């Protein structure tokens, strides 16, 4: 039975246009997500992962953003959707949690009010009922003394509690798709694990599809079903989390795994990837990773490599995939 995918993106391009320059943040990515699946977009700063995430909700700044390609989220064509339908979708069908809860929450409203207003907007209920539901949500995300915390302002809560409050706000209307933009990056390590476990549990209970953006391999390993590695605005490797982490095929992914502390690297020196990511104002004609790649050849510099599919569910954008795999 063909399941309609939750997210389907084909050849998505996102650029930011300003008076001085055009930044090509996303250069042709394909994305697929089915319901209940957790996809992790892995990449470093500037890879375009946050921009991709926001593009799924059309949340990039309106005046400056230029998008092209095909994008379909929960059956809606996001490239041509009307503002009214978009506003109705956000928070109800697709929701986002942000990296820094202190700035992402309004400081002059209580968290009870902020959760409640989402419910009142999408479910048409009154204030009393919204308050009651907000209380249930706070308990669902395991905030202690939930009743007291309903009337708390964001600056009165710790980082972990704020993030839980934001999660409660995002899942309040039971969205089908949850977009997470590095939600644990700003938290301490112990709190990070708690939030990740909470997210995983909520995802399973509510059956949400999740696109989780992070730069941390450990986080990806903890929460993802599938991983997509992004570099300079393109997907360079896709696969299930176990496959990609055990046997990365793209030189960049390999470099990432070699540079991370994990069980497979025990006893070995960590490697580094020389150079730095390209400036996206000046796109390179060939493979964006070519200047830093140890396997680079002439074909790499001429045109952007197409995807190769070495195995079921695996994709690599590298002409030297077999050679890299053997290494």
């Amino acid at each position, binding site marked *: 039975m063909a399941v309609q995918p939750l997210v389907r993106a084909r050849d998505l391009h996102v650029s930011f246009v300003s008076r001085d320059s055009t930044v090509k943040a996303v250069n042709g990515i394909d994305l697929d997500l089915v319901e209940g699946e957790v996809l992790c977009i892995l990449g470093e700063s500037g890879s375009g992962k946050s921009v991709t995430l926001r593009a799924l*909700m059309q*949340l990039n700044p309106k005046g400056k953003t230029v998008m092209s390609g095909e994008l379909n989220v929960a059956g809606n064509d996001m490239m041509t959707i009307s503002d009214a339908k978009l*506003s*109705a*979708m*956000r*928070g*109800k069908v697709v*929701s*986002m949690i*942000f990296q*820094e809860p202190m*700035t*992402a*929450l*309004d*400081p*002059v*409203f*209580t968290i009870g009010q902020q959760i409640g*207003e*989402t419910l009142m*907007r*999408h479910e048409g209920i009154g204030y009393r009922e919204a308050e009651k539901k907000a209380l249930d949500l706070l308990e669902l995300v395991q905030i202690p003394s939930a009743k007291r915390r309903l009337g708390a*302002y964001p*600056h009165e809560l710790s980082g972990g509690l704020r993030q839980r409050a*934001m999660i409660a*706000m995002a899942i309040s209307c039971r969205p089908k798709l949850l977009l997470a933009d590095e939600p644990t990056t700003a938290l301490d390590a112990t709190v990070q694990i708690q939030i990740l476990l909470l997210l995983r549990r909520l995802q399973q209970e509510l059956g949400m599809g999740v696109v989780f953006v992070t730069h941390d391999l450990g986080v990806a390993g903890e929460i993802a079903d599938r991983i997509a590695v992004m570099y300079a605005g393109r997907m360079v490797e896709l696969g299930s989390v176990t496959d990609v982490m055990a046997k990365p095929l793209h030189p960049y992914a390999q470099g990432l795994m070699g540079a991370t502390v994990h069980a497979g690297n025990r006893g070995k020196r960590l490697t580094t990837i020389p150079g730095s990511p390209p400036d996206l104002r000046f796109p390179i004609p060939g493979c964006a990773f070519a200047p830093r790649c140890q396997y680079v050849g002439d074909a790499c510099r001429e045109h952007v490599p197409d995807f190769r599919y070495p195995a079921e569910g695996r994709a690599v954008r590298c002409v030297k995939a077999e050679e890299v795999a053997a290494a």
Partner: protein
Amino acid sequence: MLYYIFRRIIYIIPISLAVSLVCFMLVHIAPGDPIDAMVQPDTPQEVIDRVRAEYGLDRPLPVQFGVWLAKVAQGDFGTSLIKGRPVLPDLVSASGATFILACTGGLLGFVLGCVFGGLAGVYRGTWIDRILLGTAVAGVSVPHYWLGMVMVIIFSVNMNLLPAMGAGPGGSTEWAWDWAHIRYLILPSLTLAVIPAGIVTRTVRGLVSDIMSQDYITTLRGKGMRRRGIVWHVVKNAAPTVLAVIGLQLANLMGGSILVETVFAWPGTGMMLNTAIFQRDIPVLQATTLVLALFFVVLNLLVDLVQTAIDPRISRR
């Protein structure tokens, strides 16, 4: 919170004392002797000394201050050197006239300022913003007494639409809310509104523009909030600062409308001060300055309390 309010009200006492001391000292530091202004040029010295002693102006300054303060505490604001009448009743009616003018001008200015500033902040960088900001800057830069005179020339002299002077037909000082009186209010309050409008526009514009670039606005859009919901969030975030600015502007209007009142011969405290300064009418000067300064103090307190009440980030202890 109640304890906070109580404490702030108690603070008014030492503040008022300091304010009255400064008012008292300022008047006496200024050059010019009222007795010399009052008597004939060739009056013999003994007569001058006797007149001076009668008014108590020959005692040492601290004594004069103490005497004056004691009287003020009992409600006796002294007697005008020039008019020979007690100061207090005139001060009360003048304060009323200024209050009407200040509130009307203030209301006009604040409403205009909030609307212009809000629009300019939302559409920052566009031509709307440029026009509104330019208007605001012009409003703050133009000398308002000049503007008052220009308005008089245009609307009173040339077009004969509105009266040029006074607060009521026939120079009366009794106020009534009917058209006959309101037409006297139009020009002066418009003139007075220009500066607060400009200041509030710039403040609101900066605030709104800053708020719109905050992360929580993105969160609100991401939750699917409609425009009205987002505006409510912007208003509540801007409110503490805007109210503070408005409160202080109101205090300014009460005390600073001297020039406009003089241009339009509006019988308020501004005119009273102006006249007293030229006539060296010390009791009137002291009393008026004190009342205006106290008004500032009270208004400041109100502004602080309102800010504490609506901004949850300010400590309430």
